[in-house]
């Protein structure tokens, strides 16, 4: 049996396309209305609607920024709620159920305990979480999605297999930017 090999995360548009193609793996039947939508001064990766007409916002985060992703998503959801009326007037054929709550589907390489606790406390029924892994599929990259259970028993945050040295810090600096010696790093081991 071939072993799965992790692949680098592709650029945003490619990652969005890969995730879009795999949303069915999460057991969600979502129709994508628009991608890369400018919401509250930032982008929403996809605005989708499920079979019941509920709007589901899909937001994809990067490693180590899962709590930031949650905050961003909550802000975007508040913004979308405010603008739903406009959308319904402009495009009544979208199939959106005006009274339905706006749900969130957040995808990240991993969710830490703080993000899980926050999501569970804020809205466990309205927020779905899933981890994504980029893997090599021959010469191409594919993405694997796995749901993270928020309600009913223990939640699993998943170990993050990403090479953290390549992931920027919250400041935007990378590990190489820090310019720290091995001796300095050892002090924090």
């Amino acid at each position: 049996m071939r072993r799965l090999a992790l692949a680098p995360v592709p650029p945003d548009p490619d990652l969005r396309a890969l995730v879009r193609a795999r949303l069915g793996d999460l057991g969600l039947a979502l129709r994508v209305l628009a991608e890369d939508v400018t919401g509250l001064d930032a982008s929403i990766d996809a605005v989708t609607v499920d079979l019941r007409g509920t709007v589901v916002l899909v937001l994809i985060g990067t490693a180590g920024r899962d709590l930031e992703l949650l905050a961003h998503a909550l802000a975007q959801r508040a913004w979308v709620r405010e603008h739903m009326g406009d959308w319904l007037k402009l495009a009544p054929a979208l199939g959106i159920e005006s009274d339905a709550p706006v749900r969130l589907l957040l995808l990240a390489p991993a969710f830490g305990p703080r993000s899980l606790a926050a999501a569970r406390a804020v809205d466990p029924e309205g927020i779905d979480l899933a981890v994504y892994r980029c893997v090599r599929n021959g010469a191409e990259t594919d993405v694997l999605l796995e749901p993270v259970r928020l309600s009913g028993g223990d939640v699993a945050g998943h170990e993050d297999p990403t090479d953290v040295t390549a992931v920027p810090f919250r400041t935007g600096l990378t590990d190489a930017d820090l310019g720290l010696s091995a001796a300095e790093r050892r002090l924090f081991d």
Partner: protein
Amino acid sequence: MLHHFIPDAEPPPRSRGGEPSIVVVPIGARDVLRAAFVWNLAFEIAREGASADIVGPDDGDPTALWPYVGAGPLGTGVTIAAAHGPADLLRAARDLADARTAESTHGIVLARVPPGWLGTAADAGTLLRWSLLFSAADRRDLLETYALAKRLLCAAPSMRIGVVIHGVRRVAEAERAFSRLAQAARRHLGARIASYGLLVDDLHLVRSIASRRPVGLVHPQSPAARALRDVARLILADACGDGDA
């Protein structure tokens, strides 16, 4: 009271004649968590009766970090300056502080400096006197915070560096994290960093980001608001020159 862990602070940069102190806060363009701390902290500073302003560079969409530009609750303000580097930005912060001098007896101007600018921060000269860093207790955040302190001290060796530990559940966890930072700074940078306490991990903070209303306004008695208030008081005490006892 969530207080200093180690009372080892150098004499703080006092406000001269009531002039607000300028505090450098390195925050990346997408670091909404630290931006939320600073924005909520400004509100708590204002609630203590001081002026509280945030000034940041025009390096993208400011509302990605701040909920508004201009005047906010209790007279807090967010100002975006057309700055091309730390010297420009801190001059704008000084101008803001000067303007506030006539109105207020004391206060704080929190200057959001992009971390990538710290390499040229020395250009800001004497305006670079005091910085506040926010760090979680995990190794990665502590490394990042230490690296920021190192950059700041390279630019201004006598700069006062204050640290707030966040995302912890217990005081002991914050104490350990701060202790590691303080030891590393003392051993490798020859510097003493000051503790400005801790911010507890509180969901109200996440909610405040979404609702765009300060925690202290919506949930004034929440652990997050009380912890922010303690941090604000420590900062103001130092700014007024009575925190170096």
